[in-house]
């Protein structure tokens, strides 16, 4: 069974770039690129000449303590705030100076998973996931089909008629992920999606991110300060077995994971950029303390 067939029958995620592979020239263009981005609020420097790039199909894990500018990076990508200087490119398109109407177009190819889910309280799970499609005036039958596919992907189809207030924290995040995936975004941004969740639920969220990376070719930024997330995302990968089931294997059993990198922020600057193995071996006392907690 092919992956596409598997996805249709079991996971039913969005039809993505996987089914329509990018040509080589397109793949060279980074999904996200920051060049010397600076941002300050009054006298407080939030980001200081931050430079990094996220390749196609890559997950960039952004680590750092509270207030180091992790979420700011995501807000800059979405154009919710503008940098003081530097350049931000999405899919090779310089969006630094884009006004709101132009950013609206760019945002259509970005899915965003917020820390607390940020579900619309007055809308049901169905309406939340269908939000983007309703805004685009898609036919209701098609909307329902897509919403059910997305909710199956996050294992929450049973909650389709519930209101956000009736959901647990983990379910809210998963609905948030389903909502972010509607419209088949090629980039997904995770803003501390496991904060405050129990370990099994946090693991479920990470597995969804891994599936998006390995089975959907989605480029993503995963902002977190939890080392468990780093372990899952940088050492495990998803495959589809012969029966069509998604399996998670650990790096080293068959191959080495190359599509996940880490950057660590400290006082608005990038203190580290590289693989998780390099991070763990870093002699930097700040990184050492962050990883081991002492």
């Amino acid at each position, binding site marked *: 069974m092919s992956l596409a067939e598997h996805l249709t029958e079991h996971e039913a995620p969005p039809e993505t770039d996987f089914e329509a592979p990018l040509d080589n020239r397109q793949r060279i263009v980074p999904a996200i690129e920051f060049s010397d981005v600076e941002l300050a609020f009054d006298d407080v420097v939030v980001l200081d000449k931050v430079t990094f790039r996220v390749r196609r199909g890559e997950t960039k894990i952004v680590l750092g303590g509270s207030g180091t500018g992790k979420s700011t990076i995501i807000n800059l990508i*979405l154009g919710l705030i503008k940098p003081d200087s530097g350049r931000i490119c999405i899919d090779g398109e310089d969006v630094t100076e884009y006004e709101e109407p132009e950013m*609206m177009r760019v*945002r259509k190819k970005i899915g965003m998973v917020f820390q607390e889910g*940020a579900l*619309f*309280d007055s809308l049901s799970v169905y309406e939340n996931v269908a939000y983007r499609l309703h805004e685009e005036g898609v036919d209701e039958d098609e909307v329902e089909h897509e919403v059910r596919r997305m909710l199956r992907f996050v294992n929450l189809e049973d909650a389709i008629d519930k209101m956000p207030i009736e959901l647990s924290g983990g379910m809210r995040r998963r609905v948030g992920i389903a909502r972010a995936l509607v419209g088949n975004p090629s980039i997904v941004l995770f803003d501390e999606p496991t904060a405050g969740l129990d370990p099994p639920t946090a693991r479920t969220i990470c597995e969804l991110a891994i599936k998006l990376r390995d089975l959907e070719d989605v480029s993503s930024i995963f902002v977190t300060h939890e080392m468990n997330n780093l372990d899952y995302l940088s050492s495990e990968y998803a495959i589809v077995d012969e029966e069509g089931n998604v399996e998670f294997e650990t790096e080293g059993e068959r191959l080495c994971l190359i599509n996940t990198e880490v950057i660590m922020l400290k006082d608005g600057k990038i203190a580290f950029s590289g693989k998780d193995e390099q991070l763990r071996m870093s002699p930097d006392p700040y990184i050492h303390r962050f990883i081991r907690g002492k």
Partner: protein
Amino acid sequence: MNPVSKFLYELQEIAFLTWRVLVGIKRGPRYVTETIDQMDEIGVGSLVIIILTGFFTGGVLILQAYPTLAFYGAQTQAGQGVATTLVRELGPVLTALMVAGRVGSAISAEIGSMVVSQQIDAMRALGTSPVRKLVTPRIVALIVALPLLTVASDVFGLIGGGLVAKQIYGLDTTVYTSSVRNGINIDDVIGGIIKPLVFGVIIGLIACHKGLSTQGGTVGVGKSTTSAVVSASISVIIADFFLSKVLQTLFKTTLF
């Protein structure tokens, strides 16, 4: 930031918001369903309190004015006084103040809560303009609903005045009705409709602006809600003065 700078900054932000609302109305997308829902929420939802406010205001006007008018032998003019006062001033202003309290606070609290829970950011991330989706429907609904509520308030105010005049002071209903007709003309009615149109814009813009600029979690929502009601109420009263002057000049009328 000193108070003057803060005031100018707020004024600038409201001017920008006004511009974005106008652009939104012109270019779309237009959220007709949301606008109708808001009309229901604002108009139908406020109807009872507006009727009660109008009814008892009309009643108390007669209650206080009738003895004085009777002293001068002008009690047959009681209806005229109530009609002029209600239609020109108290109807529009009291209705706007009640709506500022009930609807302005609700708008500010709702949008403020959406800001602090990142729902506004989520809306933008999903490619929707919060101004077009949330602000424009509320302002359009206020512009439509407030004049209608004002008319309801005026009518029930006149009914309240008539009932008090009849039941407490024994004034004949025909005399009261005739006096009411003499008291108001078409200019008063037009002026009484123009005012709530402006008040609707003021309440909507201030409430939405305060909601969108909410900071600091749930405490911030409380602050922005209070600020929205206070600012909208004061702005309505100040705007009423200048509008009255403009309308007096325009229609060449004076009170009484």
